Each structure stands twice: as C-alpha cells, then as structure tokens.
C-alpha cells in the first residue's frame, strides 16, 4: 500500500469498529447486545455467519459473562475482543479489574452511554469514567475514522504491555453517525498487529500453570506494583506505536492529546471525544474575531497524560475543562479533577473552571460551546467563577 492512500468507506462508528474487528479477525469474541453498541456485535455475528472471519464467537447470556469468557479465552492465549455500553460495562466492572490484574490484553469497544437511573440510552461518559481505576488503557475517539484506527492500534498496544484496553466512541453521536473512514487493506492491518505472544501457554500440558491463585499480603502488593509498571511503560509504548502507525500509513492520529490552535492561546478549553469537534468549529469562529483561544483534546486518559497537559496548558491564563460525566463528589467532573491535579505543580498554573454538559445525550450545540468559551474568557479577565458549572440544563 502506498502511504496515505486509503480505501474510503462510508461507515458509522459502529460499522467502522466492526470492520476493524473483521480485519483483526480475533481468535475469540464474546459479547452481549446493548444499545448503542449492539450493532458492533450484530455486524460481527454476520461476518462469522458468512465465513468472512473464522473467529470463535460466544453469544453469552450477560455482559458479566462476556468479559468472564474473554478472560478465560485470553488466559488461554487467544486474541480476544468484546464490546459494550453503559449498564453492560457496569455489570462487567468486577471482571474489568480481573482482566487487568491477570495482565490480559483484551480490547473492548465502548459506545459511551449514560448510566441508570433514570434509564436513558443516549451518550455521555458516565460508564467509562466509572472504570478509570480498573487498570484498563482508555482511549476516547473523536470520530468514526479515529475509532477505526484506534482499535487496530489498541490491539498492538495492549499486547505489547499486557494490559487490556477500551476504545470509546460517543454513543449515537459517533456510533450511529455515518462518515468517510479511511480504511486500510486487510493485509496491512494483519501485518501491523502481528500475532499475540502470550506470556505462557495454558495448553502446554507438560508444564501446567496455575492462573489466578490466592495472593495474600506477602505477594499481592508486588503483583500490583508490576501491573502499575506496565501502565507507566504504556506511556512510552503508546507514543511509539502511534508514531509507527502514522509513519507507516500516513494517518494523523494524535497519541495522548491533540492541541488545537493553542500556540498563542490566552485561554483554552479541554475536552474529550466528539464534543471536541463542536468546540473546534466555534474556536475557529472566535479566532476569526481575533480571540486567542484554543483547545486541548484528551484522547487517552489512562495512562493519564499529565506531562502533556502541563506542557500545553502551563502559562495559559484560563482553562475550562469539559466533563460529560459527574463524579457526585461536588468537586466537579472527573477530567476537571485530573487536569487540575496535573497542573498543580505547573510553573505557570492557569485559573481553572469546569463544565458538566451533555448528560443523558443532551446535545452539545453551538450556543453551549459559545457560552463555555465566554465563561473561560471571563475567567481570564478576572471574573470569579464557581468550581464548575452545568451547561445546557434547565435550572
């Protein structure tokens, strides 16, 4: 393939994800349907039924069993994938920690959706923000094209550091929106991801292994320390693999963060996923009016890019952090807290405020984006703002 020449396909986020899975052709997929991620499993089942992949597909009876079966298969040395949303991810919560603790490079698609109650099928980040401490690499993608490439990279990253990875796409906004996706030929995907090299062979009956033993005060801490070392190591690996991917295929996927018009910015907004696209449009308009405003999109939040956050935001006068999730701590959204922590020892610490927006799939529109930028500008100009504000809600 000539660098930079892609096979252009019109795909929704879910279709792009499922198509990447088809090209990856994992050994085992175990999954359970849930809106808005259902399509990923549906499309993949069709690939299986039509012989387009020879993956062993396990249509389990719950998300808990989906991830449990993935753990079993991954312990067995297989390359394993799954996908879910919302309540499904919450039901998997227990097993997420086990997948990470057993150092299993499972890759999971999450079409972000809010959590009950009240029940709502639309997009926000409540589900995956609840998995921040589970030990998974977390990748938030901005559009279907990025989701497609991120899944392929995630396989390579996860299998290099032996940690599981979840790749997010905003429920409905990206999962169901159709766009042009620059896909790669099957053989290029295969070549890039290579084969999984498991740490042990469960089916070596001459040398039987015991996996998942009781690990008490005398060993547990060391194992957790090793797991943490893998996450520290993931920072370097993610940078290397993303660079190699972009160099090989001529893509332009940012690794941890994407700075947008930040070079001379006096104030800036921090956002994840599809909301960043909306903000970029509005920032362009404000720039035309002469406003020195920019954006920092966080793409990978686990491991958290504290160095990049410090590098790009230190010296900026005011920063607003967007959260499509609540922590219910009264301390603001999860990304607000983490960006603040990353900037605590910055040489030139900006003033910071936060915004919680779009819960339950409430549209994040131009008007809200304008309000957000105005408020950050006010903060820059010396106006006192609360710890964080709710945007686009009827008070």
């Amino acid at each position, binding site marked *: 393939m000539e660098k930079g020449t892609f096979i252009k396909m019109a795909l929704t986020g879910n279709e792009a994800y499922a198509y990447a899975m088809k090209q990856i052709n994992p050994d085992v997929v175990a999954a359970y349907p849930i809106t808005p991620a259902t399509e990923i499993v549906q499309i993949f089942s069709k690939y299986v039924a039509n012989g387009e992949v020879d993956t062993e597909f396990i249509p389990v009876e*719950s998300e808990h069993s989906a991830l449990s079966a993935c*753990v*079993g298969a991954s312990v067995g040395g297989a390359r394993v994938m799954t996908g879910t949303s919302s309540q499904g991810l919450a039901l998997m919560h227990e097993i997420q920690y*086990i997948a990470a603790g057993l150092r299993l490079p499972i890759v999971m698609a999450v079409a972000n959706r809010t959590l009950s109650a009240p029940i709502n099928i639309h997009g926000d980040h409540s589900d995956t923000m609840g998995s921040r401490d589970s030990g998974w690499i977390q990748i938030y993608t901005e559009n279907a094209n990025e989701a497609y490439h991120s899944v392929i990279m995630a396989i390579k990253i996860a299998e290099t550091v032996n940690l599981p990875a979840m790749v997010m796409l905003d429920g409905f906004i990206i999962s169901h929106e159709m766009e042009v996706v620059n896909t790669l030929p099957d053989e290029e995907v295969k070549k890039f991801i290579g084969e999984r090299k498991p740490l042990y062979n469960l089916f070596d009956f001459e040398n*039987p292994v015991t996996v998942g033993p*009781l690990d008490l005060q*005398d060993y547990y801490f060391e194992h957790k320390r090793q797991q943490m070392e893998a996450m520290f190591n993931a920072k370097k690996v993610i940078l290397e693999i993303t660079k190699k991917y972009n160099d090989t295929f001529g893509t332009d996927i940012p690794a941890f963060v994407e700075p947008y018009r930040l070079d001379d910015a006096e104030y800036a907004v921090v956002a994840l996923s599809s909301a960043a696209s909306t903000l970029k449009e509005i920032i362009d308009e404000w720039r035309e009016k002469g406003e020195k405003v920019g954006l920092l999109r966080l793409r990978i939040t686990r491991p958290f890019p504290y160095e990049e956050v410090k590098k790009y935001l230190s010296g900026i006068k005011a920063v607003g952090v967007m959260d499509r999730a609540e922590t219910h701590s009264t301390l603001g959204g999860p990304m607000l807290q983490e960006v603040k922590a990353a900037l605590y020892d910055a040489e030139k610490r900006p003033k910071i405020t936060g915004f919680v927006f779009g819960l339950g799939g409430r549209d994040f529109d131009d008007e809200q984006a304008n309000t957000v930028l105005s408020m950050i500008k006010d903060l820059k100009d010396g106006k006192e703002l609360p710890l964080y504000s709710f945007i686009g809600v009827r008070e």
Partner: protein
Amino acid sequence: MQRLNLKQLAERSQGFAPGHRACAGCAFPSIIRMLLAAGADYDLVIANATGCMEVVTTIMPYSAWPVPWVHNAFENAGATISGIERAYKALLKRGKIKNAKKPVKFVAIGGDGGTYDIGLQALSGAIERGHDFLYVLYDNEGYMNTGIQRSSATPLHAHTTTSPAGTVIPGKQQPRKDLTKIIAMHRPRYAAQGSPAFWNDLVKKFQKGLEVDGPAFVAVLSTCPPGWGTPENMSIELTKLAVETRFWPLYEYEDGYWKVNYKPRKFVPVEEFLKHQGRFKHIMKRPELIKEIQDEIEKNWKELLWLESRKKEEEK
C-alpha cells in the same frame, strides 16, 4: 469406559499435591482425586470458581494442581470455561498450538454458593450454548469459605450463621433447591448426583461426564466438618448415610431418561444422618421438625422414582 479398581484409582490420582490447606476431614480433596483419576485418560483444563477449594489449593506461591488451572471470579466459572474451551478450539484451528497427546477436556468446579446461587446464570448459559465441558459441583450445603452462611443448597432446619437456630426460628426455613434437576432440564448431555462414599459410582459418573461431547454436570455431596459440626473422621461415612437415608439420592440423567443408581434395601430414618451433625442439634428433640425433613425426602424420592419409571422404548 474402563472400570477402575481401587489400586488403579490410587495410581491414576497422583498429582494433586499434599500440603494444601483444606480443613481436616474436608471431603473435597477426595472428590478431586477421584476426578483426576477419572480424567487421567485426558489432558484436563480446570476453571475453578472462588470458594474454599480455590483458596486452599492455590495460596501463592504454591499450587496443588497438576493440570492447567484458572481462577477468575466467584460467579463465572461457567463463562470462564466457555472462553477457555473456545480459545483452545480457535488456536488449534489456526495452528497456533499443537495437538495435545491426549484428548483435551474442560472442567469447571464450583461449590454450592458458586453454583446454586451466584454462578447459576453463567452455568445455565454455558450449558445452553453447548460448550464441551464437565461442571463439577462440590456441595457442602453452605457458604463455608466465608464462615458458614446459608445458601440455597442448605437443607431445611440446618443451622448456619445466617439461618441460626434461634429461640423462635429453628434454622433455615426452606428446603434446598433441587439443582441437579434444574440442570437436567437444560438437556445437557449428562447430569448426575454422586457421593464420595460410593467411589465406584462417582468415578464412573466423572468418566461419563468427561466422555460425552458437550455439557455435563455432576453434583457431589461434600462434608464440611466445621460447617456441619461433624467429627473429622466421619466425613465419608456421612456422605454414605446421606445416600442410605435418601437425603442425597444417587441418580443420573441421560438422553432424557432418569436412572436411580442406588436404592437402599432397608429404610434408614433421616435422624441417622442428622444426629451426628451440630447444625441439626437444635431439632434432635423436636420430632415434628425432623418429620418435615423426612417428608421432604419422601416427596423427592417419589418424584425421582416417577421420573425413572419413564422407560426407553426398547426397555418397555
């Protein structure tokens, strides 16, 4: 199927290492030895639910297991073995692993908490999907690992720490769930109930469960001396008395037909089984409560004989 004598059993069950931390008198190490003896014709992969067995046999850095063994969580042994079985199939199909020397068989093991209660859904799903595995339930009739709490396997009137024999309520107020029948109604390839006291029968059941291509289930009664309040040297005898009193009948379900494997020649009242156990001490002077347990036994036995009475065409 090779019928194994005691000497062969002893030879074939080598490998389950001594030094594990099971309580004195715990019945499940004997059950595991019988399972491994029955499985010696295969290469086994085991998925173990959280519970006493998982805890006492694998305290890091030690392991009592001579075969590949995986512990995931409490409620998901059925799902875990599903994933392992399919991974093996996938890797073999793609030439990523070599064929084992012997046929490979997949075994999931759980206690009654991990099987009757929290793990029932995962087990039900795995059987329905038709994975090739044998599920072995060691049923000690309570959550013994957490300190003797009631499960849906705990028998009527038994004292546990969450169904205590109080001054008003005499222990657990419900009879146990009939899990083997529930599993049989999933139409697995094989389902059975066994007891370590009837070793010949139990080994045969393990052999059958391993031999079939598809899901199989064997429930085994397992004595818990601290949980049952019984002497350590009576464990096997108690699993014999459980069968003689028909408290734990030996039967199997195959291809839609039921067979009771042992019918005691003479009536042995359930007191003979209950009287050795601290968990029933509070009812030993209350014949009306013992009668309730006896009535439950008679009801179940009648039902079992009725199920067995449906004969195959060729037997009519």
